[in-house]
């Protein structure tokens, strides 16, 4: 029998709660700080703007693309390598009133600079400011509602204290994922929101696995202190927590390396989310249950 975690393993997770709460706090502060300093880096889905994906036949310097397009617009422009070789993404952020003409101008300017037929425009996306705002509002609501959905579900299935722990852990996961995206300069667009919602739905799984075990152990070891009980439960389910995340991690690796440009960032966000989510369900979600109980002691003693 292959075992990554031997039975009777007994790590002291609960004892180290303070240390890991501090670590998480630090990560969250860094995340929020990065977003505050850099501002929200929205993709054009949310900010409105134009995006042109070009594939050149032969290698081209990013700087020469930028130089070529300098005369087209004075708007803030980013040019990034994207997906395959010689493929670039030109993003023009901000509110553009005449989207149509702008993408035409980009095409003709590139044609003049690099020659007709030396490149292929593979994708053009233009999103007006109103649509951008609409999508942004909807995305925010979707994330908030899904968090509330999780809270209600766990509250209904378990107890409020588990639900609160799980939701704080989820908010923690989402915040750190968003922070990582901000630090690595990855724009937040619709696919990233899809990744975030998936993280919300998925990383609560590990928490549920532990909570189920805690509840089971409460019957078995009713005399034990809550700290001990939780620690045993985390240890008993540790292999599960790691393995289930591991299988998802495997497919995410495949998506990250082979999925192509759009999926690359999506998989990146999920990889961060799954790692942070696994960590938080062990170190954050359940220890918070203990914290909750200290702050709001149950009226009736267990036993």
């Amino acid at each position, binding site marked *: 029998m292959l075992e990554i975690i031997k039975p009777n393993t007994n790590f002291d997770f609960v004892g180290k709660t303070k240390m890991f709460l501090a670590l998480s706090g630090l990560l969250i502060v860094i995340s929020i700080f990065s977003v505050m300093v850099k501002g929200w880096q929205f993709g054009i889905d949310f900010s409105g703007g134009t995006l042109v994906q070009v594939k050149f036949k032969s290698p081209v310097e990013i700087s020469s693309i930028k130089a070529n397009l300098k005369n087209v617009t004075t708007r803030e422009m980013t040019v990034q390598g994207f997906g395959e070789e010689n493929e670039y993404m030109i993003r023009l952020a901000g509110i553009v009133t005449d989207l149509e003409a702008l993408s035409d101008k980009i095409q003709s300017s590139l044609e003049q600079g690099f020659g007709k037929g030396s490149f292929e425009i593979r994708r*053009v996306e233009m999103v007006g400011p109103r649509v951008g705002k609409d999508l942004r509002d909807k995305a925010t609501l979707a994330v908030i509602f*899904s968090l509330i959905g999780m809270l209600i579900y766990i509250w209904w299935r378990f107890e409020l204290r588990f639900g609160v722990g799980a939701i704080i852990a989820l908010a923690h996961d989402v915040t750190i994922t968003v922070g990582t995206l901000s630090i690595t300069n990855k724009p937040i667009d619709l*696919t990233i929101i899809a990744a975030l919602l*998936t993280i919300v*739905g998925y990383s609560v799984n590990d928490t549920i696995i532990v909570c189920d075990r805690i509840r089971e152990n409460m019957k078995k070891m009713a005399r034990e202190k809550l700290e001990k009980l939780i620690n045993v439960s985390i240890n008993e389910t540790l292999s599960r927590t790691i393995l*289930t995340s591991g*299988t998802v991690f495997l*497919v995410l690796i*495949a998506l990250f390396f082979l999925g192509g440009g759009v999926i690359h960032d999506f998989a990146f966000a999920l990889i961060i989310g799954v790692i942070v989510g696994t960590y938080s369900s062990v170190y954050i979600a359940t220890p918070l249950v203990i914290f909750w109980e200290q702050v709001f002691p149950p009226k009736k003693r267990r036993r």
Partner: protein
Amino acid sequence: MFKSLKWRALLVLALTVVSLVYLLPTFFEMPSWWKEHLPDDKVSLGLDLQGGMHLVLEVQANKAVETALDRMAGDIREILTEEKIPYGQLERQGTDKLLVEILDPSTKDKFNEVLENKLSALEKIKVDERPEGVTFELMIKPKEAEHMKRLAVDQCLETIRNRVDQFGVAEPTIQKQGEDQILVQLPGIRDPKRAIELIGKTALLEFKLVDEENSLDKALKGEIPPDSEILYQKHENKETGEVTRVPYLLKKTTLLTGEYLTSAQVRISSQFNEPYVGIDFSDIGGKLFERITAANVKKRLAIILDNNVYSAPVIQEKISGGSAQITGRFTEDEARDLAIVLRAGSLKAPVKIIEKRTVGPSLGKDSIDQGLRSCIVGSILVVLFMVFYYRLSGAVANFSLIFNIILLLAGMAAFKSTLTLPGIAGIVLTIGMAVDANVLIFERTREEIRAGKTPRASIDAGYSKALITIVDAQLTTIIAAVFLFQFGTGPIKGFAVTLTIGLIASLFTSIYVTRLIFDYFLIERRIKSLSI
């Protein structure tokens, strides 16, 4: 569900057959007897995979109200002249108001009567009485305005649908979105620019007289007579792309519009061998045209489309028969598209593109390849891991995984879902998440084995105790996916759909199907040890 192994096996088998029946039409062209009796729904590819254009248009419905008010102003002018009520200022203010100044206070009651009887869409909001005249501030009734706006959006939707149909695009999607938006999806379109011209054109065809009494030069310097306006004729040099604009001084009054058209066709002029658009008027339109041309012989009549002058020929004689020509150095495509928009009618309000996404066919093909590759590699990684870690039990889980994917695709076909690039990512993710259920079951079973139970009892306990955790875990992910579906647009919806169907299918395959296999070996074959 059923106790007996045989019945359970039959259920799984039946489900497999049903799935395959749903799945086959996606991969093969089915014979006609199949199409008549069995489902023929296919999993279609999204725009991001097959290439095409996604457009969201905003109907500027306020413009429809403005146009209606302008027309009412014209009507009022006519009525006042007819009733011999002298008037001064008479114009639209903002989007929903009209200002009418009656010069003789004694005719006030007469005007009130006119208002009541003939202009029921308007209501008085302010009457300013002074000895030199009475100023009425009239507003369109909000209900009426709402109605006009809604009508304009519906009419635009219908007209755009007509245009796209006549243009000839396979399986277009054209639907209303929200209150004033129209979603247009054109899969596989090669020339997005041309399609946009065709869809977005207001195509308001007007006939107006050239103002030959006043000087164009003076008008260009700013002295425009009150009932005239300057419009331009654009000439584009096809080689250099240079555009020249020729100004015309025109009478504001529209004599005739495209409303009265019955057909518009591309014809080739024998003289210059150039395409032009021949239009035919309805009976009423033909008579109107005849009357207009009869009254204005030797004058110039301008043909205007969306405020661009196309030509302004001199009326040589009364034109009866109800047909006219629009010339303008068209290419054949341009003439064809113009004929289409004229036939389909004008948009009652102009539209504005607020979202446009085009994907070229080569990118779509690459995306499919990359999606497939990551799907295959991801599956291999998971399958190898399961066999490596759980041995034969892992193989059982892998078998159910294949079944899961078949069910997922069949489910998509049955729901007529669209497969998008994020949708493929959803399938890959499902593969990683579906085996989670088996991991939970197997870990629990191992615990029971360690506690000294028999294989059969361990499997029993493993399934029953892990069940609730599995349902909880997959359900939370499904809840999040449902929220995602609610807000997402095209490709993202595809992700939510594959993930949801995949996870629901996984509940069946990784619990019911694997259990069946284990029971077969434990009960029928009476194996004594578990490879787990």
